[in-house]
């Protein structure tokens, strides 16, 4: 199945989320995606972490340890310059995808 598409959209969501905040931990990212999508996107929360680490390896995001409001240690992620470019590209290609699907479905 189109695993890459799913992965690609998860990346897009994460990058978009981080672009709206200075920094956020994994739990926060998951919460934000779920709230913002009105609980439409239900992913297994754990599956965000391989994606985060992969993006970090690609240099799109960076991480550092910090403390939460409740004084808990957590790993915070933020968008890098490279990540911003990637977000732009990902948004554009997503638009293309949506346009393509719309035209096939006859909404355009």
């Amino acid at each position, binding site marked *: 199945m189109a695993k890459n598409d799913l992965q690609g959209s998860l990346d897009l969501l994460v990058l978009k989320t981080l672009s709206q905040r200075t920094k956020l931990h994994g*739990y926060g990212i998951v919460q934000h995606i779920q709230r913002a999508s009105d609980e439409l996107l239900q992913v*297994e929360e754990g599956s965000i972490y*391989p994606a985060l680490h992969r993006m970090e390896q690609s240099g799109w995001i960076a991480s550092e340890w910090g403390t*939460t409001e409740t004084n808990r240690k957590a790993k915070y992620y933020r968008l890098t310059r490279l990540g911003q470019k990637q977000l732009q590209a990902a948004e554009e290609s997503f638009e293309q995808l949506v346009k393509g699907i719309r035209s096939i479905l006859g909404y355009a």
Partner: protein
Amino acid sequence: MSLIRRILNLQRRTKLDAEIQAELLSHIEMAVEDGIGRGMSEQEARREAILRFGNTGMVHESVAGEDMFLSLNSICSDVLYAFRQLRHTPAFSLPAVLTLAIGIGASTAVFSLVQAFLLRPLPYPDASRLVVVWEQLRVLGIDRFPAPVGDFVDYKDENRVFDDMGAVEDAHFVLRAGDYPERIFAVRTTANIFPMMGLRPALGRTFSVSENQLGHEHVVVLSNAIWRERFGSDRTILGKDIILDGKNYQVIGVLPRNAQFSLGYPQTPDVWLPLPLVADPARNTGQLQMVARLRAGIPLDQAQRQMDVLAARLEREYHIQMGPHGEDPGYGVRLVPLHQELSGNLREPLSLMLGAAALIFLIACGNIANLMLSHGVSREREFAIRISLGAGRVRLVRLVVTEAIVIAFAGMMLGIGIAWAASAMLVNLSPYEMARFLGVSLDSKVLGYAVGLGLIAMMLFGLMPGLLIVRRARSVAARTGHQVLSERRSRSLRSILVVVETALSVTLLLGAGMLIHSFLRLQEIPLGFEPHGNLTAHIDLPPSYSTGTAQSQFYERLLEQVRSITAVKGVAATTMLPASDRLLHDPFSIEGRPWQPFGSARVPQFANHQVVSPDYFRVMGIAVRQGRMFSAQDKDGSQPVVMVNETLVRGFWPGEMPIGKHLVLGAPRPGIPWQTIVGVVADVRSGGATAETLPEIYTPITQTPSAAMALVLDTKVNDPARVANDLRDAVRAIDRGIPLERVATYEELLGTQLAARKYQMFLLAAFAGLALLLAAVGLYGVVSYAVTQRKGEIGLRMAFGASLQDVTAMVLRQAFLLAGSGLGIGMVMSILTRQILANEIFGVHFLDVPVYLGVTLLVPAVALAAAAFPARRAASIDPMQTLRME
């Protein structure tokens, strides 16, 4: 971003694991907090958080996988991880690394010799175009004959294939400098030899062309060694005279320390003198070695054809009289590339060694494949668990590949170390002087060879089993993830590997056994004389002893002097020490028969000629069969006499009484009286144990004096070398200016003759031993592994009443079956490839019974030793425990 911290973290997998763990936990804890905040109990909140998070183990594994994805720091961490992994399984990694190191080390060491002696160009400019030009007398089977000066001049002037052509003659001189005389090795050369060999003087100059003319040749160029040792590195020596053989030579130059020159001499020249180019009109005797540089673009065979044309002309003009009845004496010239000339006798032993080393390498590869298979099978479960936890296939393959690379690298480095030590040792032990002249170094090509071997070993025999395991582990994971499958196939593959290893080592063992047996045979062959207890030395009288009378008088006095040494039973002089010195083939003529040394007669009219003192036969223990020995009555001026051996009598007077017959050395010619045969002695193997006995002619020292003689002393002491100093004193008492050379016991001399065979034997035996050791390790691995795998089965058998003997026998049966198959196959292989050793084996049949019997006993004994420990382990399995476990 803190890249450094990340690298540091990645370098420590445990720390990385901890970090991932902490991140995932913090996520769950935050979710729990939120749940409590929404009014759940902590228990409910935790359950929901975990449910929503998914499988933590799986997430952990794939996060780790992402973090390790192909980036520099992750490779580094993989390597470190593999290192630790290997350190934790020394039973696998240690034999793997050692085996590979031995395989690579042995092969690389041999290759470093091949590279140095056969592949690397000689240290001369345009070395590939240098050739040695030999004359040949094909009918006599002589293909390396030194040329007379006249021939050299004609070839040099008339050829159109060489850029330049030079000639060298080797000679010995007595150098007087300081207190003691020393015999030194000299080369007389044409002036152009220096530029041809790229030799530039460190001081002064080399010869000019005019110095190659008679009367202008009293100049000398010193080697750096003799300049340092004998003249104290005196920089003002140029223009001074040194004394060689009582004549003055002016020093005109000194060569640099690194000057290298050899045309196959046993030593490097001490001094260089100009060769006076004076042609002997008859061109009967030659002493020159001719060296030439081919013109660029002219191939060797073309040059050979053009030189053949020239040689045919010289044959008609000068060398036709060598066949007096119009027969073809087979005169010609032969061009041999200098490199081939120098390394010719190394080619065969080196190919043999390279082949043996290749077998070692193959056996080592078999062992590693074996280890990898058993290691892999034992990790099948680990891999299956990793896969069910979500580790990707790429990840596992990388794990296995990294391990293989780490082993290859460690084995390679260790192997290069072994090669470095071994190649130096091989050169030092080598009986070939050329090996030391050419020198060995681990250059880039040799290192490349080692790296190549390492890569091949890992690709073929490391990775493939590893990948097989991964594939299999996946299919295992798809099923129960518990039962280990496909055991049977891996086991039969391993058995085949061990059988092949054993077979290869058996062929090596048989080969080594043959060489050893052949060597022992050689030493048993009676030489026809008694070398034990004899001391030998050589003397070459300087030109001040110019007349025959002076020479024979000197030796007469010396023999008398030596006889008075208390430890000496007898002493004799001879021009040639049998089985050690070079044979002297001389033509001879028989009274009343046609003189045809080059004809197609049944036996060539050639004999080995030896000048001896009367006591020679008694001292050497050579029996007189007919007639008498030489005596004091055979003086200069009395009737010329000779003694001959039985082979000569059989060849020329079969069934006749030879005493009283007449012959003469050389052609019958006016003014030279016939020599009368007065005695016949038993045959001696003058050319050594492997050579045919030859017709021999002995003449007495009084009638045919010679300046150069060898002394043989029959001593009363166990160690004849102890008489050496007394012998030196005896020489000094007569003439202080005469050096005594090459003092050695006769047994040492014979040992030198056998040195090349001994070397080959030693090497092949060492390789065979290594091979057997590796095969034994392989066998141990297979049997031991089988015991581990069949633990349950063995326990059950014992529970059902199998005795300890039954179990032990079961294990040993497997070992013997494998070793026996290898033995059989190895013997067949060795019979099929018997041609390889045919030239090295002497006096031993290719199906030599003692050797085959020995190997047939040795291999099962080694198999027994290899299987003994696993068998004991099998016997100590507790059936009750097994039953409880099942």
